[in-house]
């Protein structure tokens, strides 16, 4: 099922021509932003220098820090009166990043969401409960208007009050939900406690944080949904940038709207299909806030196949981690998503874990607290040791480092609504 079949299946020369035309338009639009006018001037690059798609490499990168420096409206290419809406993304320090949308941007965005939701099998007659933060966070309103556009019945339930969320799913006959995967796990837990069967649910759209195949299996089993990974960042409108099709083997990124490059995070050098690196996106249709070669910080790769069996084009792999979340432990690169993947593939592991990093006698030590699975407790201390050793050796095999595994009681570790913060780095500064 397609929302916009022509655009969704555009390939080869047709796609390349459209992307080039739109890239040139984006460079012109970016030239209206003083920051880019200066940058392009310094590099002596203009729209005229973009003759092929490969010429994108002539353009400068844009970083998250650059955007912060433009607070609040330094990156707008249109007068504020043409901006219909503002969203912000919270940074870890200081001011948030402000993103603006023209009326055209809002309709582009809604269309992309409509493509995604159609792709996962939703349509008129479906009831869609949007369980993410509304307001300044892009996930709420972004999905909301896309779902309305395509004719779904939308329940804007936002976050919080999990019991009430479950009652609404049952009372309103909700068929599809959107939330973070960690909140979905929490939802499953509470539904279990309430004895709610969530009979009507069939589709779960989960995004805003990385999650593993093991989590997918768990969510599909416990919520009775088909679970799809959704990807987006506020700088690229928000959710809707990419999503899985029913193949569930990589995400379709909308090539008519986003030009994707995968680069080595350290050198900025282009990487080919099958090579993992940082995703760099140049949006092709953004009016209010055009961006050039934005460093997303997300680690993924372009998949080898140029055509998916669903008829759409080249996919990106599921996000493998953050280039800046990457933990360097005893000189080895570790992504928290790898830890999650290992843990949730073991039946002895319960629902949550936490990672602590300490520096003890100049050595990095990684401690992992793991909630045990109630149903695998035998009552014997030696079985607990066996579980502990099994987890530590599975982690050592995947990560290549020794970890200290601690078993804790179920329900003892923090639950997260929104982005899960499972890593606590207590190593402080290096002396």
């Amino acid at each position, binding site marked *: 099922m397609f929302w916009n079949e022509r655009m969704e299946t555009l390939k080869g020369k047709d796609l390349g021509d459209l992307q080039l035309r739109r890239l040139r338009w984006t460079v012109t639009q970016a030239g209206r932003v003083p920051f880019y006018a200066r940058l392009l001037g310094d590099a002596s690059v203009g729209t005229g220098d973009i003759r092929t798609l490969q010429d994108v490499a002539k353009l400068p990168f844009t970083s998250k820090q650059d955007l912060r420096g433009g607070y609040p409206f330094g990156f707008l290419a249109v007068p504020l009166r043409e901006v219909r809406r503002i969203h912000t993304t919270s940074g870890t320090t200081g001011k948030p990043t402000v993103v603006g949308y023209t009326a055209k941007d809002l309709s582009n965005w809604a269309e992309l969401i409509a493509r995604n939701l159609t792709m996962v099998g939703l349509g008129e007659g479906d009831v869609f409960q949007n369980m993410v933060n509304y307001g300044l966070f892009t996930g709420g309103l972004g999905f909301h208007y896309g779902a309305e556009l395509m004719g779904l019945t939308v329940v804007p339930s936002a976050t919080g009050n999990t019991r009430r969320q479950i009652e609404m799913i049952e009372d309103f006959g909700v068929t599809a939900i959107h939330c973070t995967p960690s909140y979905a796990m929490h939802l499953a837990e509470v539904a279990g406690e309430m004895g709610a069967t969530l009979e009507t649910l069939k589709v779960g759209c989960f995004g805003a944080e990385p999650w593993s195949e093991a989590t997918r299996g768990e969510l599909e089993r416990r919520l009775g949904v088909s679970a799809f990974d959704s990807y987006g960042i506020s700088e690229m409108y928000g959710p809707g940038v990419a999503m899985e099709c029913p193949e569930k083997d990589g995400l379709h990124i909308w090539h008519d709207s986003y030009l994707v490059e995968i680069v080595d995070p350290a050198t900025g050098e282009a990487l080919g299909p099958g090579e993992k690196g940082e995703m760099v996106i140049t949006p092709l249709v953004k009016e209010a806030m055009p961006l050039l070669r934005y460093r997303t910080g997300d680690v993924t790769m372009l998949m080898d196949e140029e055509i998916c069996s669903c008829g759409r084009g080249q996919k990106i792999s599921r996000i493998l981690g953050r280039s800046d979340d990457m933990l360097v432990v005893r000189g080895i690169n570790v992504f928290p998503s790898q830890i999650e993947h290992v843990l949730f593939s073991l039946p002895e592991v319960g629902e949550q874990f936490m990672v602590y990093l300490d520096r003890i006698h100049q050595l990095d030590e990684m401690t992992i607290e793991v909630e045990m699975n109630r149903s695998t407790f035998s*009552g014997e*201390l030696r079985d607990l040791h066996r579980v502990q050793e099994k987890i530590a050796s599975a982690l050592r095999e995947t990560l290549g480092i020794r970890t200290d595994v601690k*078993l804790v009681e179920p329900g003892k570790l923090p639950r997260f609504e929104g982005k899960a913060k499972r890593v606590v780095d207590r190593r402080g500064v290096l002396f």
Partner: protein
Amino acid sequence: MEHERYFIKQISVFSENRPGRLAAIAKAMEEDGINIFAFSIAEADGFGVVRALVNHPDKAYRKLTGLGFVVSFTDVIGVKMRDEPGGLYEVARILGEAGINIEYSYAYSGKEAAVLILRVDNIRSAIEKILAHGGSLMEAAAFR
């Protein structure tokens, strides 16, 4: 032979080494009028198992599970000890000669006699050997 008569359901509770967990278990038992005859704690390396012998194991299981504890039942036997020197040695000797391993044990003073709680690797054979040597075992009926 009906071995199950002597299978005593010990409650085993997973516990992190955090102060107050044992107290929380004891309080929960008291609230529901459950008597704890004996308990022991085995701990190592950041976590432990609290083992308890109570008069209503099923009730205790429900109560503790409801409070979020991780609980399981473990079958143990209770040997009534003759109140004279050498009793413990005798039990250990009988089991040792039969090649039965004692995984752990603890004791409490019962009404008529001291009771030695044993977790062994072959409970059926342990029951047979102890009875065959004239020993006497607590019946599970005393704990429900």
